[in-house]
């Protein structure tokens, strides 16, 4: 292998499709995959090939494109009313949601300031149709990640006041059967190994930004991937490292 080939390999950007089970892939760096409405974005196309595009028809609720807002790279700024909704439902981005919910979500994101009032990152568009709920600051500085709206399908973590949240980072949240984890830059913040609770309704769509039942402040999101697969620890780490390299984040 020549030096040129090694350099070419190193510079190649991570493609989430190389990890099996990809259901949804949104990437703010791919401007041709987005529909612009002036400086805001009304649609972000799903690059996974599954066609689960994310849209926001209301101009005032559309995220704002910023070409250099994430470590000098492109990003979408979601303010207090902004959201985009993918056509992917729980049935789409979870494996076996009614018997052993399994989904791995990894995103490049950060919030501009630590406002301790329920900063919401992603969740369901209608909780009654199946709840996914992630709030980085739920009560004071407590984090919550909730799958299926049951106590045993929920993890929390208190005292999330450090600056890791306000620095561009790679956030991972997954439930793989009985295992739940929330990681920032590859380090677990909270998790459990005895999660239980399954979905009875699976038609809720995935929303990023202001979601049903959640409060929201501001959030930058540059890339969002969801796998409906029981990824191995090695695969999860590969996705995290791939996104980290792409977005200038040090794990």
């Amino acid at each position, binding site marked *: 292998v020549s030096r040129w080939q090694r350099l070419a390999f190193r510079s190649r950007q991570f493609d989430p499709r190389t990890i099996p089970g990809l259901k949804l892939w949104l990437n703010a760096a791919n401007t041709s995959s987005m529909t612009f409405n002036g400086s805001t974005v009304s649609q972000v196309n799903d690059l996974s090939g599954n066609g689960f595009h994310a849209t926001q028809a209301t101009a005032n609720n559309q995220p704002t494109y910023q070409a250099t807002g994430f470590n000098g790279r492109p990003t979408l700024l979601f303010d207090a009313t902004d959201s985009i909704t993918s056509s992917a439902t729980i049935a789409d981005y979870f494996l076996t949601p009614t018997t052993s919910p399994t989904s791995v979500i990894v995103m490049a994101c950060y919030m501009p300031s630590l*406002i*301790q*009032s*329920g900063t*919401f990152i992603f969740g369901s568009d209608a909780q009654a149709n199946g709840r996914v709920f992630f*709030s980085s*600051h*739920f*009560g*004071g*500085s*407590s984090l*919550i990640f909730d799958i299926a709206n049951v106590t045993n399908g*929920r*993890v*929390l*973590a*208190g*005292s999330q*006041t450090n600056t890791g949240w306000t620095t561009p980072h790679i956030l991972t949240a997954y439930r793989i059967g009985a295992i739940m984890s929330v990681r920032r830059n590859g380090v677990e*913040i*909270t*998790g*459990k190994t*005895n999660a239980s609770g399954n979905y009875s309704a699976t038609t809720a769509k995935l929303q990023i930004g202001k979601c049903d*039942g*959640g*409060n929201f402040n501001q959030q930058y999101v540059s890339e969002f991937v969801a796998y409906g697969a029981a990824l191995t620890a090695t695969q999860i780490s590969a996705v995290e490292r791939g996104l980290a390299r792409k977005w200038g984040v040090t794990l």
Partner: protein
Amino acid sequence: VRCFRTASESLYESIRLQLDAAWGHPNPQTKTITCFDPADVAPRDNAGRLLLAVNDEFATWEPASTLLPQLIASGAVEEITAAEYQAAIEQPTQ
């Protein structure tokens, strides 16, 4: 979002510990130390009053949903707007 303010550190800590007991904190499994920030690290306004902002849903979980109306009715805890909360935490401390 719902935002609250109280001048009583002891009351604040009492509520926090009651909720912790009801919700099983500290929880080594979920790594949740407490349900909201302890008074010594919680945000305060310039008058030294403790400030707390929670997601709407937080206040619907028992026993918070029972305690809150009582605390507000007693006057010991005030519910403030998100704008008031924001303005208070952005004021430079004296």
